[in-house]
């Protein structure tokens, strides 16, 4: 190989995207279950799985009585527990199986990964998330919610790995049950039928027992009922029917992403081939001189690309497969599923390899065309055709870019979703194609610059098209940090705008049923002078408000909710259209309204009205309260009472499930049959609200959390805990993208430098001191990086701005009154300054350092 460095570069540029594609596609195949794995993960080897309708009252004996002789019923009890472990809130699930998990039908539903199955009372197998969160391993004891289990194995439910789970030996939960034994419920019953049993008639008999006479099942006569029979009793066929195979879609997405990446690297590869061609010219000239026609010449260059592509694709696929084996054990952290063995899908792997070969061949195509068009004499003299001024293509690029801008603007004005996106793609694409024009312009301005920059600019402009492809590639890479910064900052700003809870709010909860110690609250109040501390009380229907209410002990008829119609809500970037939202009702007084900054509603509250927090929370002076259902699964079928209400306060808080969004006074509540009660609809529910009345500082938040840390079981959350934190992801993405871009710039600079080595030699020969040589190299590197940056910053920002703008538009059209119509677009100053300043500076520093002293006799020899 004449130029091993250049070939290695091209191979690497093909290999890395292909490795990423292979890795991604293989991990997708590995983590997405097959139909078989899915059904087994849902129900082990059982024929039927019964999900009992109501907690606590499953009559196992009755169920057994309707099953054919020889059937086996395995009950799985579940206990959900929330607690604070190592400073963070953990939602742990404990299952108890009535037979050990290594006995049919349980294998598959539970997968034993290490150790053995728990068999003796008190033993447990834990899943990898427990190992991560509780920092335990096989042989240890683990305490969950005051119960201690001895860990004998690692086991997981393959389809349920989103939170820590334990499975304990038969009898363990019952025996250990002390306080809240109600929390333990039968989550499912697996039914193994004998051979030849009639599935349909068995299901029908089971349904009579499980469903209960008062439950309306979805069917022809009741299409709107909430529950279908399949939800309660599922066969393997039902389970299979609910399987959605996302592997093809995800694989398609990763292929599309890789094609994009290969387009960028292909641009550089094309530039590299373009440089290499100078070296190949003599060889090509010989092909021509010995009677080969242009097609032969082109074939020689193309084959060079193809062979490098084969090597690169081969290395890439091999790297990807190796990576898949390394990454698979950690996959559950991202997919919440237990990956099986690594799946090597031949068509996918072949496709990836083919993509790499095609990309390499295509990037050799353009230099090959040049080579084929050159005269044999020029080729023999290794004389490159003079670089033409930017051609029609660049001009067209500019036109396309202009049209794109117009389309974008038109789309924005017409409030269209597709047009602005399409327009911005045209704008950016056209701009990239027009890069040579930009460089030509820069070249013309060069005459007035000092020597070093003049040469750098002219060089860059002179190798116009060749450099342009590389600059376009670098610009594409540099767009990423700008886009990532703009998107995540805007998203953060949007979330902050949403105000899940107030900036001055502290929610305090406990994992048990006890309330926060007085001492702790006093300390917090001391840390926050002028703050208001109020209890949070959900309103619950008193049993007996309606005849037949399924009241449980304590007279609790279920939580009371306020219903309200919404047209569209925008939650974390997803727009949920038309429907109604229900939010729990809270019982409170003037203090609570003050804490919620809704003191203007105090008078209304005291006069018996329900106060909605925030503008738009109440329409037409009333809110509707659905009456409690008469039994489980009879959906809220229409009986509602209307209560007069007013909206108060200037802010609607997004979190209406933990922070009161609707408040009723104690007296008014009693008149409606409501009592303070229970825990809220989402876990955890907080018992105390502290409002500092002015936004909390970081120090205050830290102090309060420190105070709470001294009291076991207490947890404290502020607004920051409800907001997704993009900072680390943003920094990582920005850094990674900047690094990739720097790498591309470095490659580009090296390519241009190798074209200019002769110029350097001449400079040295006519007496340029070393520092001038370095200065020129630095200026050239900086210039290339700067050109790429200058393109990348508006392109990267613009595309995100357009997206954000159309999202704002969606919000405007929704009649969601209290939602902001303004979708924030934040300029990512840090990312832009990195791209605009740091990247060119680093690049020119690299150019300075990497500039080598040319061999002094280079200009004395003919060009090689």
């Amino acid at each position, binding site marked *: 190989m004449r130029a091993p460095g250049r070939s290695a570069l091209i191979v690497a540029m093909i290999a890395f995207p292909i490795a990423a594609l292979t890795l991604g596609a293989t991990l997708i195949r590995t983590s997405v279950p097959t139909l078989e794995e899915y059904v087994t993960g849902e129900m082990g080897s059982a024929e039927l799985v019964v999900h009992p309708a109501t907690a606590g009252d499953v009559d196992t004996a009755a169920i057994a009585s309707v099953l054919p002789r020889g059937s086996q019923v395995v009950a799985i009890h579940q206990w959900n527990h929330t607690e604070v472990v190592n400073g963070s809130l953990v939602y742990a699930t404990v299952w108890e199986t009535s037979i050990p998990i290594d006995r049919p039908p349980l294998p598959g539903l539970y997968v034993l990964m290490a150790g053995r199955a728990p068999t003796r009372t008190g033993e447990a197998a834990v899943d990898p998330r427990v190992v991560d969160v509780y920092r335990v391993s096989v042989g240890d004891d683990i305490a969950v919610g005051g119960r201690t289990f001895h860990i004998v194995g690692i086991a997981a439910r393959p389809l349920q790995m989103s939170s820590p789970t334990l499975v304990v030996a038969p009898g363990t939960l019952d025996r250990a049950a002390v306080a809240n034994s109600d929390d333990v419920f039968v989550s499912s019953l697996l039914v193994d039928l004998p051979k030849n049993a009639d599935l349909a008639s068995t299901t029908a008999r089971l349904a009579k027992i499980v469903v209960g006479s008062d439950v309306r099942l979805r069917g022809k006569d009741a299409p709107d009922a909430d529950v279908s029979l399949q939800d309660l009793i599922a066969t393997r066929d039902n389970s299979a029917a609910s399987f959605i195979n996302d592997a093809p879609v995800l694989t398609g997405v990763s292929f599309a992403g890789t094609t994009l990446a290969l387009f960028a690297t292909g641009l550089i590869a094309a530039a590299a081939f373009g440089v290499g061609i100078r070296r190949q010219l003599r060889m090509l000239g010989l092909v021509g001189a010995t009677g080969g026609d242009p097609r032969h010449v082109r074939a020689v260059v193309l084959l060079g690309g193809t062979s490098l592509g084969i090597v690169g694709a081969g290395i890439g696929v091999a790297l990807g497969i190796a990576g898949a084996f390394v990454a698979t054990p950690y996959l559950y952290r991202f997919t919440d599923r237990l990956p099986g063995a690594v799946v090597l899908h031949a068509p996918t792997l072949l496709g990836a390899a083919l993509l790499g070969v095609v990309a390499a061949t295509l990037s050799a195509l353009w230099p090959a065309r040049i080579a084929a068009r050159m005269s044999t004499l020029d080729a023999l003299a290794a004389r490159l055709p003079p670089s033409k001024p930017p051609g029609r293509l660049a001009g067209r690029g500019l036109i396309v870019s202009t049209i794109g801008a117009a389309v974008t603007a038109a789309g924005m004005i017409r409030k269209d979703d597709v047009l602005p996106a399409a327009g911005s793609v045209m704008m950016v694409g056209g701009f990239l194609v027009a890069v040579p024009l930009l460089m030509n312009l820069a070249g013309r301005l060069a005459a007035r610059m000092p*020597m070093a920059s*003049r040469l750098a600019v002219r060089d860059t402009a002179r190798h116009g098209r060749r450099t342009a492809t590389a600059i376009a590639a670098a610009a594409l890479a540099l767009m990423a940090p700008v886009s990532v910064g703009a998107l995540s900052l805007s998203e953060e700003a949007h979330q902050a705008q949403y105000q899940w809870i107030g900036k001055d709010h502290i929610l305090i909860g406990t994992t048990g049923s006890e309330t926060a110690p007085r001492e702790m609250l006093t300390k917090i109040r001391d840390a926050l002078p002028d703050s208001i501390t109020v209890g949070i009380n959900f309103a619950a229907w008193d049993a007996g408000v309606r005849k037949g209410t399924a009241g449980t002990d304590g007279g609790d008829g279920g939580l009371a909710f306020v219903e309200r119609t919404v047209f569209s809500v925008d939650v974390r970037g997803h727009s949920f259209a038309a429907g109604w939202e229900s939010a729990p009702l809270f019982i409170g007084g003037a203090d609570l309204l003050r804490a919620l900054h809704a003191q203007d509603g105090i008078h209304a509250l005291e006069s018996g009205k329900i106060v909605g927090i925030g503008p738009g929370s109440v329409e037409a002076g009333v809110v509707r309260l659905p009456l409690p259902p008469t039994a489980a699964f009879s959906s809220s079928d229409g009986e509602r009472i209307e209560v007069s209400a007013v909206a108060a306060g200037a802010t609607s808080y997004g979190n209406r499930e933990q922070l009161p969004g609707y408040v009723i006074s104690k007296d008014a509540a009693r008149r409606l049959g409501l009592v303070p009660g229970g825990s809220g609809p989402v876990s955890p529910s907080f018992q105390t609200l502290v409002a500092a009345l002015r936004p909390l500082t970081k120090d205050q938040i830290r102090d309060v959390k420190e105070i709470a840390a001294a009291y076991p079981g207490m947890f404290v959350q502020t607004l920051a805990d409800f907001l997704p934190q993009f900072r680390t992801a943003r920094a990582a993405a920005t850094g990674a993208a900047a690094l990739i871009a720097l790498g591309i710039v470095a490659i580009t600079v090296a390519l241009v430098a190798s074209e200019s080595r002769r110029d350097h030699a001449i400079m040295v020969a006519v007496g340029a001191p070393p520092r001038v040589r370095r200065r020129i190299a630095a200026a050239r590197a900086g210039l290339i990086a700067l050109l790429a940056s200058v393109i990348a910053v508006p392109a990267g920002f613009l595309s995100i701005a357009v997206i954000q703008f159309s999202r704002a538009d969606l919000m405007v059209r929704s009649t969601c009154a209290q939602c902001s119509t303004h979708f924030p677009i934040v300029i990512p100053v840090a990312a832009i300054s990195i791209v605009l300043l740091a990247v060119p500076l680093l690049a020119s520093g690299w150019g300075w350092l990497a500039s080598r002293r040319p061999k002094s006799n280079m200009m004395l020899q003919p060009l090689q």
Partner: protein
Amino acid sequence: MNVLQMTDVTRIHGAGHTAVTALRDVTLGVASGELVAVMGPSGSGKTTLLSIAGGLDRPTAGSVEVEGAEISALRPSELARLRRQRIGYVFQQLNLIDGLTAAENVSLPLELDGVGRKQARQAALTAMSAVGIEELADRYPQDLSGGEQQRVAIARATVGKRSLLLADEPTGALDSITGESVLRLLRGHADAGGASVLVTHDARFAAWADRVVFLRDGRVVDETNTPEGPESLLVPR
């Protein structure tokens, strides 16, 4: 004192069994006001001699003094300054920077030396008019013919005040009339008190020299002060 004094210069390229001795114990002095022609068959070491004289290459053994300064004792930056201020070099290949106009190529040594752009351009135009190409000042090398490029290279070598002018077959790409004008330029440089070394195959051009040095296999095989006529100078190949 000679402007250029080479004493017992040996240059060996490579090492071991591939070693090529390009120059062997060559001693050559060029005084100011003198034009020396170097002749010899291809591969005899003419270019090597010139590049060592110009500080582009270092001798394996022996000493090279330019204006009394031992070149091998100079630091790279001092050597660079010597090249851009005192030595003008015309290469055997056309060696112009494609990214610079003709005038910019000519003024390059001056600009590198810190002379202002306008002043450097003025000096460049003067040097270019001496070889009759000032109207080509703002063209790029790729738009010039081979002969025009060579004249630009010569203008670059003569721009400013050079004491030593080294020309490696400067007439190769030129027709005889233009070739003569180049020789007149070299002669003029010598007559004005500079020292010039000219490598050539052409006996007609050697006739302009004060002295002709013959090289063969890296050795000085003959030296003649008064050429007896162009034909006698032709070296048999």
